[in-house]
């Protein structure tokens, strides 16, 4: 279909080019500036050609051990959340797809969508005193529980739709051959579901790695994640506790893994129109 698509006119090309630049140029400016010497960053006139340096990165990791800790925490919380999201949504999605009529399980899925609609801030207000009371404040486990709960509806929706597309007969054949229910799922359904599982992992990563609000409210020291440290660093520029160079380097380090990741998986994102709605 794409081969015979109409050629874009000059104006249409210019429009697309303008918005491409608007989207990518600000990101490039900051990433490139992270390799600039302070004198080049502070130059009154923006400097395009400069002598590249890794000085900002060595400064960042020397002066901001908190940022390194934040990266480690972000990584741990991201992996934990993916595991918990999948562990809870896979069986649920299977039940929603294969046995919705039993005991009204299918109808109960409506509540998943209802919960997704709650503004995160509205959830953090009561969560903060509750987590403090039961000792889950400033803990990675607490964050993982919250992130997983936030991501369930999207995960279940994606996985349920995929299981719908897998013929029931395949599982039934495995059962007849003597597999138990779990074996049939693991050997037949699971491999066919892998693309969906990868998609869920992608959306969870984008959400958890980048979240600012929940980490801001629910962590204070031990479990602070990279975005919160970055926001701190940005605020410290005015007080002279950090420099633009360090902040650029930190922003680049925090952004780069997910940006590369998005470039690689963009095709997948672009093919999930309906589910894309639940992201964010």
């Amino acid at each position, binding site marked *: 279909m794409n081969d*015979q*698509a109409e050629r874009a006119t000059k104006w249409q*090309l210019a*429009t*697309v080019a303008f*918005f*491409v630049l*608007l*989207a990518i140029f*600000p*990101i490039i*400016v*900051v990433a490139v*500036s992270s390799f600039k010497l302070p004198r080049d960053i*502070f130059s*009154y006139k923006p400097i395009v050609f400069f002598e590249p340096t890794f000085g900002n990165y060595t400064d960042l990791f020397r002066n901001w051990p908190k940022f390194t800790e934040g990266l480690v925490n972000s990584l741990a919380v991201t992996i934990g959340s993916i595991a*918990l999201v999948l*562990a809870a949504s896979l*069986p*649920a999605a299977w*039940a929603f797809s294969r046995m919705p*009529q039993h*005991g009204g399980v299918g109808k109960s899925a*409506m509540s998943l*969508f209802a*919960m*997704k*609609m*709650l*503004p995160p*801030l*509205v*959830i*953090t*207000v009561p969560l903060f*005193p*509750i987590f403090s009371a039961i000792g889950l404040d400033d803990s990675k486990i607490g964050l993982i529980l919250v992130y997983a*709960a936030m991501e*369930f509806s999207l995960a279940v929706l994606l996985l349920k*739709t995929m299981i719908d597309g897998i013929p029931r007969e395949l599982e039934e054949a495995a059962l007849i051959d003597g597999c138990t229910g779990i074996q049939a799922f693991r050997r037949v359904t699971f491999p066919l579901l892998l693309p969906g599982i990868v998609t869920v992992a992608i959306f969870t990563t984008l959400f958890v790695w*980048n979240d600012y609000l929940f980490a801001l409210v629910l962590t204070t020291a031990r479990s602070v994640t*990279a975005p*919160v440290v*970055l*926001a701190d660093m*940005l*605020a410290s520029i005015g007080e002279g506790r950090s420099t633009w160079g360090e*902040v*650029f380097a930190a*922003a680049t380090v*925090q*952004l780069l893994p*997910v940006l590369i990741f998005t470039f690689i998986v*963009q095709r997948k994102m*672009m*093919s*999930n*129109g309906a589910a894309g*709605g639940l*992201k964010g």
Partner: protein
Amino acid sequence: MIKSPSKALHAWALVAPLYALLAAIVALPEIVALALSFTDYSIGRDPRWIGELNYVRTLGSASFWAAALRTLIFVGIAVVLEAAIGLLLACLLIRRIPMRGLAIACLIAPIAMSHAVTATIWAYLLDFNVGPVNYVTNLMGLGRIPWLTEAGTALIVVALIEFWAGMPHVLVMLYPVRAAFPREIYEAGEIDGATPFQRFRYLTWPMIRPAFLIAVVFRIIITFRAFGVVWILTKGGPVDASEILSVHLYKIGFVYWEFGRAASIAWLMLLLTAVVSSWAMVRLYRESFAPKAAA
């Protein structure tokens, strides 16, 4: 298939972990919040029942209504631009464009960014002293403008940044829909001598409208709760010029530690969102869970 109690038990056992976690992390805290909203609870103090006083005070406070109005302006600017530009780009990108894959990847790049990085980027670009934007406005003879620290511009500027960060989301929702339209219907349109505008008005628009509406509703819901970028960039300031509802709520809850009052604002926000979002949710549920949609 015969409905049996054991099957029902089996089905519920499979969804139980999911619901247990949702109940503990989302539902229960919301009920606690509702209870708190009728108390004067604050950190390090026992909650005391004060009835509907928090709601009376919130609904009677000028700062709440001012924040609500700012939220309306913020959401209005951001969502109108996101929807219009997102739809335009979705329609343009299906044409033959050199390096289309790369163009799409660049366009949706802002989706990969945390609020902290978005805020960092724009804090620098718009910085009064070192920001390149002010270098350009200065060259153009407009002088340097304190974009984020001037009461007149702060709210509009954060809304535009929200547009920058949110537009890719609209594109991701609309482009696959537009790309799936069969080309044949457009060929028929060309034969009849339809202008591009007529083709959009009578062919594209009726087909893309359902997806467009969902995209707009989603963006309204998400933009309504926007917090991170605004909080990092302006803290709601200068004074309260960019204090939208989410920032207002955060300040009362986590800066002044008035949890009872914060809970009342949280519940008001929840009810407000519920009005817009229940429509979208019912629709999404029907699309993905209704028996006929399974085909």
